[in-house]
């Protein structure tokens, strides 16, 4: 494969992986604290919608981002209320949140904008601009005749919106928070054995709420990136199952931040490759496009079966913490 296409695929990978990474790390916080979250999809969707709406109304991408985060936090609060305070079933609550986001975004969207659940297209100030890092060639410049290192830097590393870098920084930051701080220690402990945390004099409820809130925050960023970074506006169901893929990546990553980066990059890469190579003509027969499109999923299964061992979730995950009865 020529270098240019290779770089282009990597470039595409970074973009496609970013929302996954946000959502995956988001899920990591919640699940590490013992609260399973299959509502990542819903939180991303509602955040994408809120972000696009606010950004459209104000023309300010940061207000949009704040609105996205706010909406996702609200949904996270619902999940927290159901699964922490009221000891409800975390799976059910997550499913409900996905339905809620899917319905509410369209109902509100079509009422406000009368575009069938779509927001109007965002103009430049209301979107994230791509950042060109120092020494990088502008992204518009042609890829031909570029050396690998400079090409890699200019096209894969540079030239993304700020949130891409936030997402990438999130990985070491999460690692550090998880393994080097008091909060991280308690967070990991509460997902493994809440009773140990409780008897050590730390509030299980407060810890879990803060974890769920972080999840909301990051899902908010994921949504904001999708509607204001990758696209210019909201479209119904625009998350297109990425929340579920992020969840798969989280399991894949065994709930660890660096592995999460690898897993999300892998999913991004498979997706980018599938986009690039559609009909593969190998002389005698043409491999149908459907096969290429299914390939990322097939490869995931193969990798999972072949190279990834058993993933053991946080031990207290999915169970509300109940002392009595």
């Amino acid at each position, binding site marked *: 494969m020529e270098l240019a296409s290779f770089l*282009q695929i990597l470039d595409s990978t970074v973009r496609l992986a970013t929302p996954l990474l946000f959502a995956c790390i988001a899920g990591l916080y919640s699940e590490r604290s013992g609260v399973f979250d299959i509502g990542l999809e819903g939180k991303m969707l509602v955040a994408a919608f809120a972000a696009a709406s606010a950004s459209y109304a104000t023309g300010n991408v940061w207000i949009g981002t704040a609105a996205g985060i706010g909406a996702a936090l609200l949904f996270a609060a619902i999940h927290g209320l159901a699964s922490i305070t009221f000891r409800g079933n975390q799976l059910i609550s997550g499913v409900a949140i996905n339905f809620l986001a899917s319905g509410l975004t369209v109902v509100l969207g079509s009422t406000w904008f009368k575009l069938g659940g779509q927001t109007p297209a965002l103009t430049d100030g209301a979107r994230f601009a791509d950042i060109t890092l120092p020494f990088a060639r502008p992204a518009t410049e042609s890829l031909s005749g570029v050396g690998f290192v400079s090409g890699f830097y200019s096209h894969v590393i540079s030239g993304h919106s700020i949130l891409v870098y936030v997402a990438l920084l999130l990985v070491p930051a999460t690692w550090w928070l998880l393994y080097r701080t008091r909060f991280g220690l308690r967070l990991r402990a509460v997902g493994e054995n809440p009773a140990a945390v409780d008897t050590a004099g730390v509030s299980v409820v407060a810890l879990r709420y803060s974890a769920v809130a972080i999840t909301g925050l990051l899902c908010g960023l994921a949504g904001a990136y999708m509607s204001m970074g990758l696209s210019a506006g909201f479209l119904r*169901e625009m998350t297109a199952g990425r929340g579920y893929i992020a969840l798969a990546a989280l399991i894949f990553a065994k709930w660890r931040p660096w592995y999460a980066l690898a897993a999300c990059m892998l999913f991004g890469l498979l997706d980018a490759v599938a986009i690039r190579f559609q009909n593969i003509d190998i002389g005698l027969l043409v491999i149908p496009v459907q096969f290429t499109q299914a390939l990322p999923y097939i490869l995931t299964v193969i990798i999972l079966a072949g190279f990834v061992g058993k993933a053991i979730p946080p031990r207290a995950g999915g169970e509300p913490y109940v002392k009595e009865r």
Partner: protein
Amino acid sequence: YDLGGKNDKSFNEAAFNGAERWAKETGGTYKELEMQNEAQREQALRQLAEAGANPIVMTGFAFGDTLNAVAPDYPDTKFAIIDMVVDQPNVKSVVFTEDQGSYLVGLMAGMASKTGTVGFVGGMDIPLIRRFGCGYAQGVLAANPNAKVVLNMTGTDPSAWNNPVKGAEIAKSQQAQGADVIYAAAGGTGVGVLQAAADMGILSIGVDSNQNYLHPGQVLTSMMKRVDNAVYEAFKEGTDLKAGINVMDLAAGGVDYALDENNAPLVTPEMKAAVEEAKAKIISGEIKVHDYMSDNTCPAATF
């Protein structure tokens, strides 16, 4: 009267516009319904029929089968279906020659392209979309026999029509492969394609409705499928709706390319001349655009 998932900025929105136009002009009222799933189609049709709606217009080939079953039960109600042929005495079937329209925009794309490479983004790999793609490819090759057409389908799951992020990514990928004009026939996904093309400073081509206004000066043209006209006609004919097949081709104004102030600067006089010429030749039969649906093959592209 009936629609399906409106405000997609293309197909269904066109239908809606047609209905609106009729309502404004005649002061008549119409009811609209959106479908959520298969079983509801029949339900909706029957309820509209029983409520005395006449005629009932439906958009999308997916209604074909249902209509076939429902129409005989309501012999006094007139139906019109768009994009599908249903052979019933009280049904008017409106089909468009998307291949011809796509040929025209393909021709323009071929001429507008500086790199000699153009792109096509389809939603899902279904026959209808292949017909678009095939007509387009023929048009491109007519303009530039050496041109390359990069064809992409978005996906196979139901989200394929609603995935602007992936649409944008495909557009970027095609751009990297040299494409500088991209034609999107992918519903909501197309919004992302057009956006990404505009962001990258390359041209795009809209579909179904006139989408030129979405990114003024950056959408080369739109392949217009005058669903609005079809709906409007159907409503206007009212209960006198003529059954039978109504082929809305170039000659009948069923398909066309869009030219307005938004894309006027992009369309050179030569381009316009060439397209008009092709249009005339197609209408006269001098140019035959191969229809993918006729034999499931395409001379200009492989799917």
